[in-house]
């Protein structure tokens, strides 16, 4: 065996840029929770974690032929640079899609984006300076939290219940921020089948929200990726359909067609739209032109409304399987939401359980979920988890909830062994459903 040769000591730092990264990148870190999801991609694991839409039933062969013809016949345009605001024909189509939710809009006020996620990024970039406040539902979409953090914005959560944002909580949050001298730039809300809770704002709450926005001179950013995926009850009007000056609207084809094309949009008041277009040109020159041609081809040549009906039927079956699985398998003390559309249910576990520290046990048992803490900027959500029913089959959903029930039982037994439970001060959570479990079997 041999020892290392004596070497001249160097103050070597293997990442030579370590002292040059922008402050905002310090929040962009690898997380152990995210790493565990890597296992969830294996077929042995029932993943109730990801929010991937199930696009297996799309008429892929016919779409393939249409796209081949697109390249053949119009490829010189479709594969060329395009407009920073998005292609005019795409924006026309987008207004037709939004009309399905009672939104009246002019194509000139639409900015096409690389998925609605980029729309959110452009809106945040356009409005927010470091230290500004964005109000967001408690809990809120993890991707939005990441974007807001990247712009060094302070996120203040506003409590919701099973009817959506509570007006009193919004009023208190605005007053508290303003009393502290903080600048609120907008309220970020997902009114339909919210990610992660599955909660839908009632019509009355929507009206109250618009009224409060007027009272407090507040801008609302309405994120509505799931709006056309109502699976129970009547669809509700979008906030944008109730106010066209105070609402910036984010839409997407990711759930109603397919996410791989990465086409979303922002519908904004005229002046805001001008800023967003400039921001888009700065970011990408133009949103993906080929994807816009492809999606327009789909909308023109296929029964996209019929496809959405098929999606609703499929997701309804999966939602029912999820609710049935939860009813059959969750331990006493669990509650969960009753989504009437979209992809997600939100589970609140018995006191003492911590969804983040329980995740490795779940992964070992071959089931995955997203811990509730991912959806809060303030460390809350430890007793919550998001379960998605969009991608796995009904049988897999039932099996996943069975495994999850066993994991929770084992974890509860572990907690009892160590005397952790009622009264523990270390577990923090917010519950959006204080009522009993839904009666769906």
């Amino acid at each position, binding site marked *: *065996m*041999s*020892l*290392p040769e*004596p*070497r001249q*000591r*160097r*103050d*070597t*730092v*293997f*990442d030579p*840029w*370590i002292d040059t*990264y922008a402050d905002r*990148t310090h929040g*962009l*870190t*690898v*997380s*152990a929770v*995210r*790493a*565990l*999801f*890597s*296992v969830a991609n*294996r077929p*042995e*694991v029932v993943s109730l974690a990801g929010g991937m839409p199930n696009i297996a039933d799309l008429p892929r062969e016919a779409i393939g032929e249409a796209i081949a013809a697109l390249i053949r016949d119009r490829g010189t345009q479709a594969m060329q640079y395009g407009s920073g605001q998005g292609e005019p024909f795409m924006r026309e189509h987008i207004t037709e899609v939004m009309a399905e939710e009672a939104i009246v809009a002019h194509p000139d006020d639409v900015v096409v984006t690389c998925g609605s996620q980029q729309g959110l990024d452009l809106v945040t970039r356009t409005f927010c300076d470091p230290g500004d406040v964005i109000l967001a539902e408690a809990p809120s979409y993890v991707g939005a939290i990441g974007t807001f953090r990247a712009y060094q914005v302070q996120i203040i959560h506003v409590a919701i219940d099973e009817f959506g944002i509570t007006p009193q909580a919004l009023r208190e949050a605005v007053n508290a921020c303003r009393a502290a001298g903080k600048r609120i730039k907008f309220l970020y809300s997902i009114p339909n089948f919210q990610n992660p809770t599955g909660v839908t704002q009632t019509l009355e709450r929507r009206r109250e929200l618009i009224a409060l926005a007027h009272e407090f001179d507040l801008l609302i950013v309405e994120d509505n990726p799931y709006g056309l995926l109502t699976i129970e009850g009547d669809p509700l009007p979008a906030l944008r359909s109730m106010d066209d000056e105070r609402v910036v609207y984010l839409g997407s084809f990711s759930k109603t067609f397919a996410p791989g094309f990465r086409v979303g949009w922002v519908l904004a008041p005229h002046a805001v739209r001008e800023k967003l277009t400039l921001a888009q040109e700065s970011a990408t020159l133009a949103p993906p032109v080929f994807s816009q041609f492809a999606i327009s081809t789909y909308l023109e040549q296929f029964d996209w409304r019929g496809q959405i009906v098929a999606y609703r039927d499929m997701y309804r079956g999966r939602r029912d399987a999820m609710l049935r699985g939860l009813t059959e398998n969750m331990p006493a003390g669990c509650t969960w939401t009753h989504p009437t559309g979209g992809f997600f249910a939100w589970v609140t576990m018995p006191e003492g359980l911590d969804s983040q*520290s*329980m*995740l*490795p*046990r779940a*992964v*070992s048992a071959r089931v995955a979920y997203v811990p509730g803490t991912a959806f809060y900027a303030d460390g809350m959500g430890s007793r919550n988890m998001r379960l998605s029913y969009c991608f796995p089959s009904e049988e897999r959903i039932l099996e996943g909830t069975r495994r999850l029930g066993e994991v929770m039982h084992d*974890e509860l*037994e*572990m*907690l009892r*062994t*160590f*005397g*952790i439970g009622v009264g523990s001060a*270390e577990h923090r959570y917010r519950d959006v459903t204080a009522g009993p479990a839904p009666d769906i079997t």
Partner: protein
Amino acid sequence: MSSDLGTIVVLAGGLSHERDVSLRSGRRVAQALRDRGHQVIESDVNAALADLLATTADPVVFPVLHGGDGEDGSLRQVLDLFGVPYVGSTGPASQRAFDKSICSPLVTVRTPAQVALPNSVFRELGAKALVSAVVDRLGLPLIVKPSRSGSALGCTKVTRIEALPSAMVAAYAFGETAVIEQFIEGTEVAVTVIDTGDGPRALPAVEIRPRSGIYDYTARYTAGETRFLCPAEISDEDAAACAELALHVHEQLGLRDLSRTDIIIGPQGPTFIETNVSPGMTETSLVPLAVEGAGEYFGELCAALVRQARRRHAAPSES
């Protein structure tokens, strides 16, 4: 593409909690070998593996699996059954090194005082008395970790007795047995031991300085979150002692080809924390940094390790 090493099957992924790290390590190793002109197949560990090995001409396996079956020796025993040469330690040696509750008592170097307890003990004997006894015996602060896991997953530093039960629950989420050991304050270094046929040799120690003060999962795998210094800013005496410790552990556990030993240089000198038979090979991992710090090339090392595995297979008595 032809190569004197035949077809190298880089195994990465698996079903352990460290799958993500393994995939990143595997990609790095595969690319380094390809860059040197070798023929590489990347494979996950799944039902297709046996067929892949059976239908690949002259395969040699480079396991880059972290945690679980990939590091506890079971996969290596399977490779022995198949008669396929592979880089790294044998199954039994891997088993000795991987399980922290087995490894520490086996090595005759300075280790932190520790106890390893399966969760059933707490259930049967009552947690309260055991928790008190652990703290009475080991004192505070403590570090609690799963006995069979890596990348600091499930590890918690405990400074108050009230926090110990939660730390135990977090460790048991990763497996049946947890190790509770004295927390040693000091300089954290890692020493890589390489043996490509001329006997084991230690590479210069890499010093670890996490920005947050804690070398947890985030600090390990987010570029820029940790400063790595090589050679470590330690005295020549400590550097030599760390190298000797790592070589001693490597030989005493019967490891071969490659190991990485984690050491804390505390008030009493270098203390052994753990050793890894399948260390991380990602862009922010310690072995590639040590290789670079030694003025060597990662791709050359990977190829030399594969060549050594081939030689050993051709002359089994040498293994």
